[in-house]
């Protein structure tokens, strides 16, 4: 990647269980105002933002073209607006491509999801499946993950005790993140005694229902310093979509994530992921996914997730100091949240969870049942 793309500013509201008292437009507008305030960016056709990329999900919003009712509050009124209905990390990759192509200088990436609006998150994700073979038997993202958790734990030596450790650590880390969902601290015993939802996944292994919105200003290299003194550079991006049917996939094998990571590493010139990153943020919607994705991006040995946790891998590689998705981000935004945290770390703005002198970070996002699609982004300061 010869030309570079900068993230100049990030803005977010706090992750909460139920933002019933604010419409998603209001949540977005809070983020929008923060970006404008931080950077002074405008929306004129000459020098301003001409294109906004939004992230939203029709089913969670219960309205199709879920972006059409918000263009005015995200600065897209009478301008370009495009929507990503996938994890928000892909919106960041798309913004990068818009800028690298020379089509745009500046892109606002802005997304929201109110998981609390639907009576049942699992009913929403059941609709991600086809109506002939998978939807009728009741597949949703939770029970699909349960198949993957069983396959992965059998292969990697990850045990129920490891999962408990991951959950406890997530909540401890999230307590240092002012934007994280406020969850009561838990003990490993409490995690292991929490109700079994779809074995081996227990209630506390699964990310809680969460509402959130976030935004980023993405800019070409030439103009980045107009908006910030601390640009964070996108130096690599890769993504990969696995097969649709669960039975077609090696559920424990990380096929798509390995491909996504390799593609990002090739762009960023990374040959050894174990020494490459000061901060790693992985999109762990369920506890088993943290070591699994760590294997997939190559910071843990293949099939060695359990031993990697025992050897202190989560802290050694500074994985999910934000608390991770496990602490609570809505679906569609788990990966964008990871990138937000990586940016804050690389700007030195991560406060009580700051990794001193962080130079390079990996952020990961996933979309679809049991990690069907993965995206990996490499960020540097």
């Amino acid at each position, binding site marked *: 990647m010869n030309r570079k793309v900068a993230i100049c500013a990030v803005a977010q509201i*706090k992750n*909460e269980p139920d*933002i*019933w*008292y*604010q419409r998603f437009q209001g949540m977005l507008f809070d983020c929008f105002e923060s970006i404008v305030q931080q950077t002074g960016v405008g929306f004129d056709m000459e020098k301003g933002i001409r294109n906004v990329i939004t992230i939203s999900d029709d089913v969670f919003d*219960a309205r199709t073209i879920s972006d059409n009712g918000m263009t005015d509050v995200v600065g897209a009124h009478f301008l370009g607006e495009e929507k990503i209905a996938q994890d928000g990390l892909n919106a960041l990759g798309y913004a990068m491509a818009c800028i690298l192509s020379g089509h745009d200088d500046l892109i606002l990436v802005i997304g929201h999801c109110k998981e609390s609006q639907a009576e*049942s998150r*699992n*009913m929403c994700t*059941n609709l991600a499946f086809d*109506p*002939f*073979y*998978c*939807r*009728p*038997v*009741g*597949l*949703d993202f*939770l*029970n699909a993950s*349960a*198949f993957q958790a*069983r*396959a992965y734990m059998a292969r990697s030596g990850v045990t129920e005790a490891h999962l408990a450790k991951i959950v406890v650590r997530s909540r401890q880390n999230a307590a240092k993140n002012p934007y994280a969902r406020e969850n009561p601290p838990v003990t490993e015993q409490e995690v292991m005694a929490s*109700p*079994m*939802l*779809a*074995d*081996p*996944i227990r209630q506390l292994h699964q990310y809680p229902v969460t509402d959130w919105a976030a935004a980023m200003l993405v800019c070409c290299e030439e103009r980045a310093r107009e908006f910030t003194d601390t640009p964070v550079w996108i130096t690599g991006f890769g993504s990969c979509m696995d*097969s649709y*049917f*669960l*039975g*077609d996939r090696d*559920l424990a094998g990380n096929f798509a994530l390995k491909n996504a990571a390799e593609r990002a590493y090739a762009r960023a010139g990374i040959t050894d992921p174990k020494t490459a990153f000061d901060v790693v943020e992985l999109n762990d919607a369920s506890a088993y996914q943290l070591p699994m994705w760590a294997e997939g991006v190559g910071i843990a040995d293949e099939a060695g997730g359990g031993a990697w946790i025992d050897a202190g891998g989560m802290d050694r590689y500074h994985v999910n100091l934000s608390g991770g998705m496990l602490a609570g981000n809505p679906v569609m935004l788990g990966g964008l949240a990871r990138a937000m945290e990586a940016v804050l770390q690389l700007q030195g703005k991560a406060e009580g969870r700051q990794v001193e002198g962080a130079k390079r970070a990996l952020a990961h996002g996933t979309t679809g049942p049991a990690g069907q699609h993965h995206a990996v982004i490499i960020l540097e300061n």
Partner: protein
Amino acid sequence: MRKDFDVSDCYVQEGKLALPYSYFAGRVGSTFITTLRDQRRILGVRCNTCGKVFVPPRQTCERCMEDIRNNWVTLSNTGEVVNYTVVNYDDRHLPRKAPFILALIRPDGADTPMVHILEGIEGDKVQPGLKVKAVFSEKTTHTILDIDHFEPVA
């Protein structure tokens, strides 16, 4: 909730999306569904390049890009459990009251397991490799639920 937020006079509207649809199953899917419904046979398709037999059936092998739509094979009504989970929560989209078992079941003669309901065994007794057979439903739903469930081979 943010402490400074004024929530006086806030109204929350209750709503619902309930929208009937007609979905074409595709030609390959149509053959699979109608054969299951009318003949109680489970069909797969074979890729002649890699030899893999897919169920549910598809038009193209995802690895070889070969057109496999006409390479029908009748699979056995028996198979084996490859993976499973005991679903322990109730919800409107689920086909059974909790607890019930969802399993990845590979019909004999196929290479790809498919997800279906497993009955006739306690969740803590299920092991990968368990031999099971299809039990067809009394009444058709024109979906994969024309197999009502799988159960262990006696």
